[in-house]
């Protein structure tokens, strides 16, 4: 029910009349606190401590993006669901290599199965040559069972993803959106820019959901917990990236919603303009609120709820109640 708010304008965000208030030249807008789940800031926004205190009180996360649209960081308010027990369990599963591998492999498995589902979907739409890529991914995945180190596991995950990405040109089939190869920091063409932007949105969405559970986002399993801040959201996002972000990109392109003028070149890289970001986010929000029926749940759940359910499944695994089995899409 609660909805995220996206701020692209420059201005001041503050607390006013016990609610959120955004003010810039000519624009004055109250945002209902009780109905806000998180705030995404893309513009140049000023805020003060009193405002952050208020956000902590209302349990709202703030995500910042820089002017290139890259993720900068989040204001992660004090945990309101505290559980020493859960932290111990998370640490236990991290420190014990076998337990860590079990979880890490589950994430890779989930990611691989969902990538395969995406390719299968397009195969059923008449792109026959995808079969070769699915075969190759299957082969790469098979070697996963004997692995006993996280580094090799990540390498295999990388290989699977590379195979998956190399099939993109077949799926998209649009001269304006040639994929060629995955480039990051900076992404060098339109499609890479979309993937990067979509993935960083996905990471923040999962992070926001983790905030609403007892899990600690700092302890991840596939991505090692070192001195970076959050890793668990990266792990969980792997599962959802193919079915949410990649599918979204394909559908946006096939509907001709993106034009070359939505991009601009900068520092050898390619940037998305605000207008295109808004359109992308709008479509993403729509997708996240789409409800589907899921086996074993029986009820209609939205994709956003599905992410939360995934986190609860991890909690159950950590507590030793039920083995974690990643979500694999049915379509």
């Amino acid at each position, binding site marked *: *029910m*609660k*909805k*995220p*708010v*996206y*701020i*692209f*304008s420059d201005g001041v965000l503050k607390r006013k*009349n*016990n*609610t959120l208030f*955004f003010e810039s030249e000519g*624009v004055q*807008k*109250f*945002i*209902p*606190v*009780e*109905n806000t789940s998180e705030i995404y800031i893309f513009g140049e926004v000023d805020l003060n401590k009193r405002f952050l205190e208020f956000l902590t009180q209302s349990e709202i996360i703030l995500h910042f993006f820089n002017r290139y649209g890259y993720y900068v960081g989040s204001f992660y308010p004090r945990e309101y669901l505290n559980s020493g027990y859960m932290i111990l369990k998370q640490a236990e599963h991290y420190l014990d290599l076998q337990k860590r591998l079990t979880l890490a492999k589950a994430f890779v498995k989930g990611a691989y199965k969902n990538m395969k589902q995406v390719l299968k979907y397009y195969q059923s739409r008449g792109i026959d040559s995808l079969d070769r890529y699915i075969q190759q991914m299957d082969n790469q995945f098979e070697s996963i069972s004997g692995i006993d180190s996280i580094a090799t596991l990540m390498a295999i995950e990388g290989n699977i993803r590379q195979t998956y990405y190399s099939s993109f040109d077949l799926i998209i089939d649009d001269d304006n959106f040639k994929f060629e190869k995955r480039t990051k920091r900076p992404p060098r063409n339109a499609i890479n820019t979309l993937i990067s932007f979509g993935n960083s949105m996905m990471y923040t969405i999962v992070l926001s959901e983790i905030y609403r559970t007892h899990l600690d986002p700092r302890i991840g399993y596939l991505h090692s917990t070192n001195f970076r801040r959050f890793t668990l959201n990266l792990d969980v996002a792997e599962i959802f990236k193919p079915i949410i972000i990649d599918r979204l990109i394909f559908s946006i392109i096939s509907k001709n919603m993106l034009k070359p003028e939505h991009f601009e070149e900068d520092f050898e890289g390619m940037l998305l303009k605000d207008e295109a970001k*808004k359109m992308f*986010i*709008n479509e993403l*929000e729509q997708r996240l609120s789409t409800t589907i029926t899921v086996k074993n749940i029986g009820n209609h759940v939205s994709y956003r709820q599905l992410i939360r359910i995934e986190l609860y499944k991890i909690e159950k695994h950590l507590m030793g109640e039920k083995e974690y089995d990643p979500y694999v899409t049915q379509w």
Partner: protein
Amino acid sequence: MYTILVYDVNEKRVAKALKVCRKYLNWVQNSVFEGEISEAKLKKLKLELSQKLNLEEDSVIIYNFQTKFYSSREILGVEKNNLDRFI
């Protein structure tokens, strides 16, 4: 649940009603609010409003829709506040 809330409140308490409603729903025009809200939040809103208002004299009407599916929204003239999720 999608909700439209309108109030007709004595001038003395109008500001109070406005402030409470702004926390839960989007302001649309003078004394009209609308927005997606959960049942629990709506209960909270009603409670807060009834504490601030004089229910002998003031009047608040709340329209609830289970779904927006069969509804449409038209604006004649000026849209005083657009309900976009982007600012």
